[in-house]
């Protein structure tokens, strides 16, 4: 792999609370190459959105980065002073949020919001910003962009608003976009349009993407590699085909099997018993051990780290021995 654009190493995020400090993210490590799309999947509460927020420096207080480092093109960004981090946001790391109905300021026209973003980061004139804003609206597929530029967010449908949000995330031409559930609030047919748009723009601009979603189908179609999260940890990371078709970690395997397939009706869906533990009650050892069908003594005692497993890496004691077998099949 070429020099990574984004490198996260051993990231740890904590939340002080009345009942003690909760560890929300624990030992997160991954890298994204320039132009690469890394998918991040997991169930709600697994910590995938928080990972995105940590990378862009927008953790909700009292959450804080308690360990590890984040590097963008080799430069550490997790300990930057506020003003330098601000200049990075939007300019080098863009963000797309889940709900297009609430991410746009209702009181300003979309043109103003676009121009404002570009004028903050790019050395251009207001007239040029407006010209580019129209260009961006055209790029993201808003019909009659020149006329709609002065419209307000409430005058657009949900799908159209998400297109505006994408334009806002990309208009200062960042190297990396963090897309946090960009299609979850949209209907299937609109989701397909937005995914196609995101893929096209990322390819055209050469933008790398951290795509956070709970929808494995979206990941399968969009991502190059995928990281599977469980209880604040990455349990498996690898090329998307391998993780989908031959998941190595028992949790990934269970997750893939639980997804109802579109192609055929099956007699009974595979299910993982129980539910993901709350942050305050993560068991010692492997966080998945109480639900794991292949659990053995070591899983309860010691925490596994990511190790090579086939073409992927999995955090599972089954792969402690490099020659060890897989769980799949």
């Amino acid at each position, binding site marked *: 792999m070429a020099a990574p654009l984004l490198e996260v190493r051993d990231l740890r995020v904590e939340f002080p609370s009345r009942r003690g400090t909760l560890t929300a993210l624990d030992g997160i490590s991954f890298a994204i190459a320039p132009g690469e799309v890394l998918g991040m999947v997991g169930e709600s509460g697994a910590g995938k959105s928080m990972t995105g927020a940590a990378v862009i420096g927008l953790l909700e207080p009292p959450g804080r980065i308690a360990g590890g480092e984040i590097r963008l093109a080799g430069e550490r960004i997790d300990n930057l002073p506020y003003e330098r981090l601000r200049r990075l946001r939007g300019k080098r790391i863009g963000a797309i949020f889940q709900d297009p109905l609430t991410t746009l300021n209702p009181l300003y026209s979309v043109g103003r919001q676009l121009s404002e973003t570009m004028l903050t980061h790019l050395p251009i004139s207001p007239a040029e910003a407006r010209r580019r804003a129209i260009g961006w609206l055209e790029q993201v597929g808003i019909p009659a962009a020149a006329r709609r530029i002065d419209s307000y967010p409430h005058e657009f449908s949900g799908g159209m608003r998400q297109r505006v949000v994408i334009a806002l995330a990309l208009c200062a031409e960042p190297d990396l976009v963090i897309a946090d559930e960009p299609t979850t609030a949209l209907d299937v*047919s609109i989701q397909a*349009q937005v995914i196609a748009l995101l893929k096209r723009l990322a390819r055209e601009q050469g933008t790398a993407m951290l795509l956070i979603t709970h929808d494995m*189908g979206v990941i*399968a*179609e969009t991502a190059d590699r995928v990281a599977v999260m469980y209880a604040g940890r990455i349990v498996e990371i690898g090329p998307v085909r391998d993780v*989908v078709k031959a998941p190595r970690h028992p949790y990934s395997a269970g997750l893939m099997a639980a997804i109802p397939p579109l192609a055929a009706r099956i007699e*009974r869906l595979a299910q993982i*018993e129980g*539910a993901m533990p709350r942050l305050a009650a993560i068991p010692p050892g492997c966080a998945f051990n109480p639900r794991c069908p292949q659990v053995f003594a070591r899983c309860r005692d010691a925490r596994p780290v990511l190790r090579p497993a086939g073409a992927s890496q999995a955090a599972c004691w089954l792969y402690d021995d490099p020659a060890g077998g897989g769980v799949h099949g």
Partner: protein
Amino acid sequence: MAEAPPLFAAEDLARSFDVSRPLLQRLLAGEGRRRLRAVDGVTFAIPRGSTLSLVGESGCGKSTVARLAVGLYAPSRGQVRFDGVALAEARHDPRQRRRMQMIFQDPYASLNPRWRVGDIIAEPLTAFGLLPTAAARRDRVGALLAQVGLTSADGEKFPHEFSGGQRQRISIARALSSNPEFLVCDEPTSALDVSVQAQILNLMQDLQRSLGLTYLFISHNLAVVRQVSDRIGVMYLGRIVELAASETLFRRPRHPYTRALLAAIPDLDMTGRTRIPVGGEVPSPIDPPTGCAFHPRCPLANDRCRAVAPASLPPPDAPGTLVACHAVEEGREAD
């Protein structure tokens, strides 16, 4: 031998909502009343012991059908027949009312946060006066909890002590407590994570088999629908555009909208595939397009589609299916 009536039948069911602005503003702006036609002429029947699903995108009217089905809304036109009896009549009789129940989408809003789980599950028992003694009710609640995979000790707890999936189990236990025959399930798994969704879907299938339940299943997720349904109705803007047996629908979708919907779903098997999504968005149900509501987005639309709303007809080669599409009727569909 006379054929038994289907357990549930919707006959030309329609429901519109008044979404007009206040009278004063309407008069000043010179506009008339505005009606949102949420459901507009829906007909289907569910035989005993089977599952019929309605799928569609948001605003297609599927949830309104669910509420019409249990009498939470009164229809503007048409009617629902429950076991051959008009629903309005059946709702007056507690013995009939007991036979239908509903499971909801949001596991957080569907249980009263101030009630103990045991009381929540026993509410139908008390409302229908099914078990006179508290001890009998407690036993029944314990049995129901066990049936949905919880323990009878859970009856003492409050809803906030449970995860989303467990709450959905409690919701199912409440629905089962009055021994219903017919369950309306409104997006019962769409708020759940995938692994928990599988648990709930499996549980619902087990219960259907062991109790002989009949389901009306509402969902936006075609993959989920495929796993649970015998028949599927695809809704678009208040109407059923295609109604077919589950396997038929997935093997050979007929309506252009059904095809577009199927094509839009990202699937694990399609990794890396690029495809052309259907353009446009769902129009407003306040001001639906003329003729066939899908015509502005349909690749097969012609003048007839723009002018005349198509009737639901069986295609010549598929007698069990109903499709509301001129192109299918005229044989213009390109496979």
